């Protein structure tokens, strides 16, 4: 039997902390948008908490991620501070990007979030470049490209996997298969029953894993990260999950099968893993309530900090276009 790396108790708790933060942050985002205090395009990652939480348990602050517009879970799991994140969501000068990027372009190099793209598939070509840099420097860093199942049908996916394999780059392509490419169902627009099978076409391992199962996801993540770090090249991970909400906030999701969605929500990975921690004696109810309360407090603080912050000055229109200011 093959040895599968498993997270120890401390790691499991750290993974749960990330998952709880992502879930609470999502609920807070929806609440604040509904209240009218904040206007932003919002692509909920609810239901996909396990994937980046388990991935990040295998990464360091120095490792890079490239993520996409549905990527708040990836960012939070990698450690983007809540205040900086929320101020950016609110378009304030105290945000990660001075309010100039917004929710679809969160960048935070200190935690390794090198780019968030609003273009489907475009995290992958850039992730290759970061991984190439690590290969040249020999710094041992690993780069993760996050993307959805829809992105596996765009040219950038195919060009990127081929190049990564030819150059043996320390990059991991993590496809979060939530069954929906915007409004279109997976099977209607994808030629294979498993995206993982496409790994074989590019000479790399293609791993199909239950992305809502912490243990399976951790094992896949750890194996791929170890492989990349020791110079053995890229891996494609297809992490199966389900998107609890419509494509974008405000989308009534009439195209999603109700029974399928209800089943997915009944199997919500966050309370499921919470129950496991208690049953396995890794954490007590009180400890978890305290953790969740702490998260709510951090969110209160981040939202108020963001909304109390200033908007960027209009002179910012001419700044950061180039290194030198653009004349008005």
């Amino acid at each position, binding site marked *: 039997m093959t040895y599968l790396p498993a997270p120890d108790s401390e790691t499991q708790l750290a993974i749960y902390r990330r998952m709880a933060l992502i879930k609470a942050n999502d609920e807070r985002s929806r609440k604040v948008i509904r209240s009218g205090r904040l206007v932003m395009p919002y692509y909920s990652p609810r239901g996909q908490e396990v994937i980046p939480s388990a991935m990040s348990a295998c990464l360091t602050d120095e490792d890079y991620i490239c993520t996409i517009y549905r990527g708040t879970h990836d960012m939070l799991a990698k450690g983007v501070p809540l205040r900086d994140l929320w101020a950016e969501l609110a378009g304030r000068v105290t945000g990660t990007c001075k309010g100039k990027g917004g929710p679809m372009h969160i960048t935070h190099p200190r935690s390794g979030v090198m780019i968030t793209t609003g273009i489907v598939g475009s995290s992958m*070509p850039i*992730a290759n470049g970061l991984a190439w*840099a690590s290969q040249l420097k020999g710094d041992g860093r690993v780069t993760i490209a996050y993307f959805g199942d829809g992105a596996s049908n765009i040219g950038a996916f195919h060009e990127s996997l081929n190049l990564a394999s030819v150059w043996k780059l320390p990059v991991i392509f993590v496809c979060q298969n939530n069954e929906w490419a915007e409004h279109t169902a997976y099977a209607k627009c994808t030629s294979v029953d498993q995206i993982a099978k496409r790994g074989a076409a590019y000479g790399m391992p293609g791993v199909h894993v239950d992305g809502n199962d912490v243990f399976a996801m951790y094992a896949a993540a750890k194996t791929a990260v170890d492989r990349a770090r020791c110079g053995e090249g890229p891996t494609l991970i297809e992490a199966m999950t389900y998107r609890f909400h419509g494509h974008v906030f405000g989308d009534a999701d009439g195209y999603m099968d109700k029974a399928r969605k209800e089943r997915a929500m009944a199997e919500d990975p966050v309370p499921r893993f919470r129950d496991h921690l208690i049953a396995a004696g890794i954490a007590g109810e009180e400890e978890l309530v305290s953790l969740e309360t702490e998260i709510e407090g951090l969110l209160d603080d981040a939202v108020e900090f963001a909304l109390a912050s200033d908007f960027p000055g209009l002179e910012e229109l001419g700044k950061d276009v180039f*290194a030198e200011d653009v004349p008005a």
Partner: protein
Amino acid sequence: MSARGSALAEGKSNILSSVNAALADAMREDETVLVLGEDIGDAEEGGVVGVTRGLSSEFGDHRVRTTPISEQAIVGAAIGASLAGFKPVAEIMLMNFSTVAMDMIVNHAAKLRFMSGGQTNVPIVIRTMTGTGFGSGGQHCDYLEAWFAHTAGIKVVIPSSPADAYGLMRSAIDDPDPVLFIENLPTYWNQDDAAPPGCRVPIGKANILAEGSDVTILAYARMIQEAKPALARLAEEGVSAELIDLRTIAPWDRETVLASVARTGRLLIVHEAVTPFGAGAEIAAVVNEQLFGRLKAPVRRLGGAFCPVPFSKPLETAFAPRTDDIVGAARALLQPA
């Protein structure tokens, strides 16, 4: 084998060799400079016309990487490596092939500095070649500089001489932001004075090639070759024409152009790109805004015909402006209204 070739006279160079020398000098001085693109390694003969010949042998395949035919992956890899501290020079073999990498160039390279609030920047150079004259038809020789100049966050340079090719390439590699570097294919081998090693030509500075008082002719790339003989013919008719090589499309040198047109009162803009919505349209608009009362005639533009580049030789020749067209247009500018 050096791309500098054996036929170059002392102190002379050509654009192809000058770009090669600029890349080699930059790579020698700065180990963060990388080169990537299709067919660029010496195993592939150093590029389809040999611009990168010798680089992989001198600097190794790790710094000079031949890529698959994957333009998005090429530009993406350059962007990613630049985010981690490298200065990649990516070759997109022909300018028309940049169309399949537009997302990486326009949505990413050009915008990451702004969208990250200045936390990241993309110090890459994208080299590409183009130009009519070799009968390559509708998808291999377009001038698309205006598309990129229309995007905030990317600079566009376009040398017409060996010395400018060297100096602008060194400046482009030094630049902390993305630079699109356009090379004209048919004039790669034309000889002229070589640049002194290490010299820089500033981005955003035009070059007055000939001074004149009656009309300003503003051109770039191969159109300089067409404009030079026009000066002598106009002089025979008693017309004193000033010739400016724009050299940088974005940001273009308003100061030099406006000062010249303020003196001559007449402007003829010549480019190989099709006329409608071309770089000439923007320059003409600014000149009209700034010098309206001082113009002696409306600004005139000469550009490629508004059709795909044709294959058939007479059509291809007629597509782009020629010396005769430039003389005729300049003459028309001097006719009393």
